[in-house]
């Protein structure tokens, strides 16, 4: 049982907590401890965490409290704890990527994102569950068991970052880091009634992010409010010389945009290809209502067509497996993690093979095989080469659409959270969850998902996706902030406050 104070602490936004810590109304240790207590209380049912680092988190909190006591100026999120997706390297803390093959590995270095979180005084509570190597849309492909959706524990929390989204939605953490290769931040945000942002490709350093598909991966914030996402985005974003694909230009001021929260005079494009067939009725309904609200707020809404989005999923499932088949080659049992069959009489090849056989789950093996095939001599042009051409066409569709509109919108996911076990044996059905989120990754744009209500037919959260051009991440926050404000005014509270207590 939580005391009223603790319950209050865990339900606050990160911005509110940061202010309270800065003002001395509460200590960073108290805030961190409250979340650790919450994890201890509910995580056996949610299973958002793979590893909890209470000691490390409290040490950071104490350092923040000491800085404050010494009169030092605190960063905007100092002392507010965070849950880290288990795909980011964190020094001396187990990093598994949801896979058996990395069991026992403790990285000797911090990812750039982790360095920046530490520098900002953000206590890291632990590592969150995910589909193995971020391959999946339900977190059921984790080697360590699925995460449960706090809205209905029998349902999936989305994936691959289901752990981070569920940690936010169950008040185990006010902030989380996810990674998004084809929707792994946004789709979990949509099905858990939270906010998730995939920054512009190159906007957040990938150094220390264990690669799934290098040309698509991007880390970003998972929060309960648009402002919290902006604050976290500005902590982790910006140029990093250790990532060659990191953009050297200064990032747009997302915090100012979230504060301005204004869509007056904006042109918002409705993507024709991302509605209709395959989209659940209640999802479409809540989406349309939200678009009407944006119109009321002063935006002009137009319909746009992006004809090549229809090929995005197919092209994505060639590019991603191709890159991942190469990225995952290093997990061979030679240097770190699991090693199987090394009994002294087997060759290197046999040990590598046995290790990979035992260490990888079925979805990982499926994609490695797909990618190996797509890159093979004689097939490269027809598969990988063609997919890259489709990618260019998708970028051109976006260019044309952004010539007419400031942002584009769509439902984030075609359905609300489905039941655990429902699609796990049907890869194609699983892949279709990301049909609306994948085009953004293919083009390197930025996008946000934010909650726009519960679907009438099942009472589960629906997400709306806002898409903006590269390095125009601030537009996501202008639209997201305005829409969140209008919905809060309409409901009298944030949607997340309707989540059942666990």
């Amino acid at each position, binding site marked *: 049982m939580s005391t009223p104070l603790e319950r209050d602490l865990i339900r606050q936004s990160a911005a509110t907590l940061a202010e309270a810590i800065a003002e001395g109304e509460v200590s960073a240790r108290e805030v961190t401890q409250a979340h650790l207590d919450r994890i201890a209380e509910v995580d056996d049912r949610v299973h958002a965490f793979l590893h909890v680092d209470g000691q490390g988190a409290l040490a950071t909190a104490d350092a923040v409290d000491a800085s404050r006591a010494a009169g030092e100026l605190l960063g905007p999120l100092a002392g507010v704890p965070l849950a880290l997706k288990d795909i980011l390297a964190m020094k001396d803390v187990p990093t598994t990527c949801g896979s058996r093959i990395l069991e026992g590995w403790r*990285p000797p270095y911090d990812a750039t994102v982790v360095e920046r979180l530490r520098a900002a005084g953000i206590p890291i509570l632990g590592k969150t569950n995910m589909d193995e190597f971020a391959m999946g849309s339900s977190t059921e492909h984790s080697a360590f068991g699925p995460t449960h959706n706090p809205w209905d524990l029998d349902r999936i929390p989305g994936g691959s970052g289901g752990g981070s989204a569920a940690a936010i939605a169950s008040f185990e953490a006010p902030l989380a880091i996810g990674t998004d290769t084809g929707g792994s931040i946004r789709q979990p945000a949509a099905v858990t009634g939270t906010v998730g942002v995939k920054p512009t490709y190159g906007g957040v350093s*990938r*150094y220390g992010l264990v690669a799934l598909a290098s040309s698509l991966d991007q880390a970003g914030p998972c929060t309960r409010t648009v402002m919290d996402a902006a604050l976290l985005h500005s902590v982790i974003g910006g140029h990093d010389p250790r990532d060659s694909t990191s953009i050297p230009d200064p990032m747009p001021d997302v915090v100012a945009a979230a504060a301005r929260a204004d869509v007056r005079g904006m042109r918002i494009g409705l993507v024709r290809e991302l509605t209709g067939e395959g989209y659940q009725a209640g999802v479409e309904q809540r989406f349309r209502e939200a678009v009407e609200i944006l119109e009321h707020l002063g935006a002009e809404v137009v319909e746009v067509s992006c004809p090549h989005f229809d090929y995005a999923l197919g092209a994505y499932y060639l590019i991603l497996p191709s890159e991942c*088949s190469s990225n995952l080659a290093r997990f061979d049992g030679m240097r770190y993690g699991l090693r199987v069959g090394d009994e002294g009489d087997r060759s290197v090849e046999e040990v590598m093979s046995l290790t990979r056989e035992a260490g990888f789950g079925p979805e990982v093996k499926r994609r490695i095989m797909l990618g190996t095939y797509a890159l093979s001599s004689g097939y490269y042009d027809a598969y990988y080469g063609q997919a890259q051409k489709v990618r260019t066409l998708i970028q051109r569709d976006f260019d044309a659409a952004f010539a007419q509109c400031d942002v584009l919108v769509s439902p984030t996911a075609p359905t609300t959270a489905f039941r655990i076990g429902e699609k796990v044996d049907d890869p194609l059905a699983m892949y279709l969850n990301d049909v609306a989120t994948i085009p953004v990754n293919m083009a390197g744009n930025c996008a946000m998902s934010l909650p726009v209500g519960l679907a009438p037919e099942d009472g589960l959260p629906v997400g709306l996706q806002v898409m903006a051009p590269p390095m125009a991440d601030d537009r996501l926050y202008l639209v997201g902030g305005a829409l969140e404000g209008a919905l809060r005014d309409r409901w009298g509270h944030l949607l997340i406050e309707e989540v059942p207590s666990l």
Partner: protein
Amino acid sequence: MSAPIPYADAVAEFEPVIGMEVHVELGTESKIFCGCPTAFGAPPNAQVCPVCLGLPGSMPVMNAMAIESTIRIGLALNCSIAQWCRMARKNYFYPDMPKDYQVSQYDEPLCVDGYLDVMVPTDDGPMVVRVGIERVHLEEDTGKLTHAGGATGRIHGADYSLVDYNRAGIPLVEIVTKPVIGTGALAPEVARAYVTELRDIMRGLGVSDVKMEEGSLRCDANVSLNLPGAERGTRSETKNVNSLRSVERAVRSEIERQAGVLKSGGRVVQETRHFHEDTGVTTPGRSKEHAEDYRYFPEPDLVPIAPDPEWVEELRSSLPEQPSVHRARLAEAWGIGDFEMATLVNAGVLELVEASVAAGVAPDAARKWWAGEFTRIANESGVEPASLAVAPADIARVEELIASGALNDKLARQVFEGVIAGEGTPDEVVAARGLAVVSDDGALLAAIDEALAAQPDVAEKIRGGKVQAAGAIVGAVMKATRGQADAAKVRELLLERLGVIDN
């Protein structure tokens, strides 16, 4: 298995086609994708970090100096420089490769389509052969495996293997020639001359220390044979060619072996072969009949390379003098011809002669010492002349002593023997070994009298005007003074003694 046939017979019947793939480790301060040092000889795995160990999550960042060096090599080899190109991943599993892929270049190399003119010594004098350059590309080196136990030192049959990742991520430039045709019996010499010339260019550019014995220059020699007018034969790829001499021997041995195979009606297998320094023959390695599929694709962790054309022109205009131009200039200054120059180049002593001349030694004397005595000593001890402990200043000093009459040629050789053995400077060796020319006329006259007494018949001949007979007496005196006399002086004194006028 068919026996190799003699070289002369092999090249009389078949036309050899050679191709060279040379890997050069760049001498950059840091590795290609991280800040780790590149110095040779550190304890195993002391120069590693998450990036060159390929730890999960780590990412490469391109070393700008590696790009610059590759472009300079390309320019020196008369290549075109790509205006836009990418690195590519070469995928295959091997424990010396931390990521199980090598970041290399595939269909978009940085430099393409150049040539290098090399000079080959022939019986009719030096001949210039133009070797076409297919491509010059940049890649990362792998780690180094040491296989313990087992008889062969290879991975198969080893008890266990150790891996050192210090070398992993050292920038490597691969230089691939076009097939070199029409060289006939000279193919082995052309191969050697090419690698020698390439090494000199690298050294002149200052991009690598190009030490074949430390592996900073590694060479694979491709050889195929065909009957005149027939289609190109199947080629083998010989590895482990670790010295200039081995380049020549390996090509020669491969020609003899393949000719034997073809002559007996067999078929040359497409494979890698391993050259053995001790036996001078190659043995089969990995079959390449079924080419491994490396599944190349553009490296998504690195941005494309787009060298600014203006910068490339700056690099071009600041290239050092080409070795061939440099040699022509030296030959003129020293007053020597192509043949003498080719001798110095083939002996690997050109730079040493140059340094000695710069230290004040007369060009003829510097050539004589390096191409003669020092090369002989180096060959006897199985080392490169450059590694002998004799400095240009030592040669200058010994030459001074010869000019002043304090040393003669024989003594000078003994002085160098001492210097090379580490006994000190020439003056110290002269002092310690007591190597001064005997210039005391009294002592010499005594020795002359003794020799004349021992050979009265010779003395009589000389007195009779047969001056050429004096050699026997001079020789005896030199022997008696253990070489420490000036032979000209002895002869002068002898003739004076006998009252004979030398004409």
